[in-house]
Each structure stands twice: as C-alpha cells, then as structure tokens.
C-alpha cells in the first residue's frame, strides 16, 4: 500500500516506537506476531463470525435521501452507530481480544476518554472471560458517568487517572505505566490508531472492515465501488482510518478528515491538531501534536470527549503531510447544529463526534452525480445530556 507502514513502523516521517525500554519486550512481541496471527485462517474465521453474529455486521450503507436532496449529491451513511455497543470501537476491541487470547494474555488494560472504547473493551472481556482494567481520567469519569456504570456492570474495574490534566492523555499514560509493571501477562488494547508501532497499523487493519464493506455496498448501490468523497471525524483517528483504508490508494477518491475546532481554532480551546500542532512524539509515535514551544503537551478542548485528544495517529500525520487527505475542523456549535439536523432530517441522532463530520457537508459543494460516504461512527445516546442542555429540549 502506497500510504502503508514500512518494516520499521514508519509512515513517511511519522510513526516508529518511541517507548521506554520497559515496554520494548511487550511491543516487540506484538510486532513479531501480529501479522501472523491476524492473517491466520482460524483467526479470520473467528473474527468474521463475531463481527457478523455478535457485532451485527455488515453495518448498512444507507442512502440518506433527505440529506442528498439538501446537499445536492448522493449522500451515503456508513452506519457504524448500529454496531453492538454503539460505535465503531467494537471492531478493534474484538480483533485485539482475539489476538490477546492467542498471545496467552490473562489480563486486559485499556484507556478511554468518552468511555466508548472502555465499554467496547469491557464488553469483549466479558465475552471472553478475561480480567479487564480500564483507565479513565478523573474529569472524564465525572463527565461520562453512565459509561462508567456500563463498564462496571460489564465486570470491568475502572481506575481514575488522577495525574496531569486527568483526561484521555493521562488515562493513556496510566495504562502505559500499568503495562510497564505487568509486562508478561497483560495486553494493552489501545483504542485508536495511535501509540507505538505496531498499534497504528494493527488498529487500522481491524477497523478497515468499514471501507471493505463500503466498497462492496457502493458497487451494489451505484455500480462503482469508488465514491467521489469520503468523510470521517478524527480524534486519534480510528474510524477515519477504517473508512479511508481501502480507498487510500485510489487517488480519485477525495478523503476529508474532520477535526474538532472546539470554540474555534484560534480560541485557545480547540482540538484541531493539524491546524495547531507541530511534529513531535506523543504516546510512542512520531506524529503531529499540540504542544508548547518547549515541547510540553497541550491539553486540547472539544465538546466531544472522543475528539478531545492532543495528537493524531501517525498515518493521519502522513496523509496530512502528503496532502492525500484534507484535514478541516468544525466548531462545537457547528457540530451540535449538524447533530440536530441529522436527527430531524434522517431520524438518526449521531454521536457528537460524528456530527463534526456531518457538519462539514455545509462547507462543501458537490456535482449532482457525486457519491459521498460519511462514516456515522457512533450513536448519540451518550450525548443526550449535552444536546438537551444546548438546545433546551
């Protein structure tokens, strides 16, 4: 693949494995084994079976007719919101738990921001009967209390991250510290296409089912497997990478990645990483991250906890730098308005993360025959409080 990873874990200038020696054996074990395991026929059969019968795949590709009328193009929604647990996060969690089992691991750790990845991980651990510890920023635990309860009900232990800014990046730090102390029996299920190699590639492969299905569904619906545009929101970037994966090498397909501008790119309260960040190292990979001129990581802001991350995955940094994908940003207000519009035009209440991708449609112009696919990465149940507060329902 032209935009894929090389043997050392790099995508152009980005990627690698900038980890302390304590994590080297864990990461090396994964690096040596992940491709053999996930390409094994037995693994594939079990993964496919769970995606079909447990997650409910393939997720529909829905032709959104009222959206199509409004925006003057054929708009398709890739319905990851209909997956078990309510978002695309489950695809990766299923893949990694099967991998962890084959590696003989007895204990799973994960980080979570909004709680979607934590819930997906707690779910697959319950399914497999494996101990699960989820690190979550103390502030996020208060903001996303229902997801904390969901994880506990699923049998997971939720540990508050009390260091630093007490949000997603600190939860990630705490999970890494746990992994340093438990190098032999524990697997760390990272929730996005971030972290040291091979995580960005491994998570992208597990999420690539999104674009694999989309291609087949587009062929049935439109007579061509290639659309003109593909849109997805980006925090760390896992749904976007899954949505872009099988379209990346077809340069005719325009890829649009939507970041969270928060209260505005220049407001000082934003998570628009490509607009505000510089190259550096975060959570084990060389990428683009929001940082001070002294190289300290800046705490981002977005109303959407799932996009509230100071970096992007290294493959996104590569797609950005090579201009293969266009990176844009949407404010809190624009996203919330788009969430309301989607609810009332299509009867789908999207996650606020997803609403960022939907809002981008307002800023684009299309030819009438353009086929446009948007990844509906998650459902909005978890965000009802925020929507209700904003619109006063």
């Amino acid at each position, binding site marked *: 693949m032209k935009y894929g990873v090389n043997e050392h874990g790099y995508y152009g200038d980005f990627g690698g494995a900038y980890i302390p020696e304590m994590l080297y054996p864990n990461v090396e074990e994964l690096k040596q084994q992940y491709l053999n395991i996930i390409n094994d026929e037995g693994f594939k059969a079990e993964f496919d079976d769970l995606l079909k019968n447990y997650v409910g795949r393939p997720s529909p590709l829905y032709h959104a007719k009222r959206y199509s009328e409004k925006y003057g193009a054929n708009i398709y929604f890739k319905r990851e919101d209909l997956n078990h647990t309510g978002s695309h996060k489950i695809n990766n969690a299923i893949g990694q738990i099967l991998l962890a089992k084959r590696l003989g691991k007895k204990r799973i750790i994960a980080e979570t921001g909004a709680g979607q990845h934590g819930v997906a991980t707690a779910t697959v651990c319950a399914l497999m009967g494996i101990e699960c510890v989820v690190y979550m920023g103390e502030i996020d635990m208060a903001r996303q209390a229902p997801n904390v309860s969901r994880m506990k009900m699923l049998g997971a232990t939720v540990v508050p991250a009390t260091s630093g800014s007490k949000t997603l990046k600190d939860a990630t730090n705490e999970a890494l*510290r746990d992994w340093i102390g438990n190098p032999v029996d524990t697997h760390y299920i990272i929730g996005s296409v971030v972290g040291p190699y091979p995580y960005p590639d491994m998570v992208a492969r597990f999420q690539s089912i999104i674009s694999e299905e989309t291609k087949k569904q587009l062929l049935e619906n439109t007579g061509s497997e290639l659309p003109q545009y593909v849109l997805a929101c980006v925090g760390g970037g896992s749904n976007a990478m899954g949505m872009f994966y099988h379209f990346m090498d077809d340069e005719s397909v325009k890829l649009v990645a939507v970041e969270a501008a928060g209260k505005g790119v220049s407001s000082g309260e934003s998570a628009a990483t490509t607009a505000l960040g510089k190259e550096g190292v975060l959570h084990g990979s060389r990428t683009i991250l929001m940082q001070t001129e002294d190289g300290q990581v800046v705490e981002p802001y977005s109303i959407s906890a799932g996009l509230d991350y100071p970096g992007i995955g290294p493959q996104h940094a590569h797609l950005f730098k090579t201009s293969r994908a266009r990176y844009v940003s949407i404010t809190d207000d624009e996203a919330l308005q788009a969430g309301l519009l989607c609810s009332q035009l299509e009867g789908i209440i999207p996650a606020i993360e997803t609403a960022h991708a939907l809002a981008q449609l307002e800023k684009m112009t299309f030819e009438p025959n353009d086929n446009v696919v948007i990844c509906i990465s998650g459902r909005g149940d978890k965000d009802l409080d925020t929507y209700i507060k904003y619109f006063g329902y």
Partner: protein
Amino acid sequence: MNRLNKLFATKNKNLLSIYFTAGYPALNTTVDIAEALEKSGADFLEIGFPYSDPVADGPTIQHSSEVALENGMSLKVLFKELAELRKRVSIPVLLMGYFNPIAQYGIGRFCKSAAEAGVDGIIVPDLPLFEYENMYSPYFIDSGLSNIFLVTPQTSEERIRKIDELSNSFIYLLSSSTITGYNLQLSDSIEEYYKRITAMQLKNPTIIGFGITDSSSFAKACNYANGAIIGSRFVKLLGEDGYMDKIEGFVKGIRP
C-alpha cells in the same frame, strides 16, 4: 575521555548517583543542589528536565515535574542555570528526560548546549535503540556525550550485547520492569537476572536504578553492579522544608 569514563577508571565499586528534577521545588536551585550533593559525597548526578507526560515515572517524580513546569522550568531555563555548573561542580553530570522536549529544542542544539554546560551524558528513556542508532547517534558522538541505555529483566541477551556495543560509559540496569518510585524487593528472580548480567562480562560498567531507597537496598544493589542510583526518595526529601540542610545527612545515610 569524559568525566564519567574517568570516574569509572578510578572507582568501580559502591558508586552512588543521585537524581533530582530541575526546577523542583523552585527555580535557580539546580546548581545549589548539585553542589551540595557533590560535597556530601555523591559520585555522579542525574538532573531531570520535566515533561508533561512522563510515562516511565511514578507519582513522586510526576509531581516534581508538574511543579517544575509550573515554576517555568524548560530546557532553555535549565541551560541558563547550568552556565554556573562547572564553576562549582566537578563530578560527572547527566541530563535525564523525555524525547519530545529535546526534539522541539532541536536535538543537535540540545547536544551542543549540554556539552557547553559541561554535561557528560544523556538518558532519554523513550529514545529507543533503533532510532538512536539510525537517526540521532552522530549528534551525541560529535558533542562527546555518552548516551545511556536502560536494560530490564525482560531485555534479551542479544539486545543487551547491542546496547553494550553502543554504550561508552555505563549501562543503566532497572531493578525490575517498573516505573520509578517503587521499593526494591530483592527476589530470587531479580538475583538471577543480576547474575545473568554479571556472567555476560559486558565491556561497560553497570549501575542499578529504580527502587533503591535506603542504605540496605543500595548495599544489595552494589553486590551486583558497580553502583546504584537513588531518585524518587531524594526528590521526596526536596519537597520537605529546609531540604538544603538535609542533603548531607541523606547522602551519608545511604552510603555510610
């Protein structure tokens, strides 16, 4: 031959190194603390520069890093403070910190500033062997700085050999796979690991760090290596009132 090599050439037993975070508990204390440590008998020093996301550190050093950042510590500020270093301190000094602040400062510029300040070596826990060897080693070598690698009980023999080959002062042995600040429990498996390292007859001296807290764990570590490093326990002392007057007692308490 830098100060580290000279030290190891003249002394190879019971070496004591102390770590502290620059900018903690206050700015403009780095050289004062370094000088007090030398006077109290420390053989060499590690000066940490703070980072917002120190994944290899436990709560004590995390806290010291947060306070140091709030105080305004940065590499620029640190190098300003270190202009006084070689007027007052003669023992070897290493800088220790994470890669991203170095990358933003500029790795070539960082090595040059460190060498100009009279620093002898660098420890960057999240700069891995592959990246060091293939991208960054010329900067260190041209500035005469030693790069110090970490080895854990899980590090393979092949990798330890490679680390030994790329090192030119000492190898930092971790007492176990752990973040900083946890107590060393000398179990059979740790003893076996130290014996395995000793049997490899490495060309570089070894120093044990992480989990050394007092005279007894220091003495035990010195049975298996050329010396040991104390970090979190000393950083805790720096959080106490009147810490400058307690440094001598602390160091002498570790190695009577």
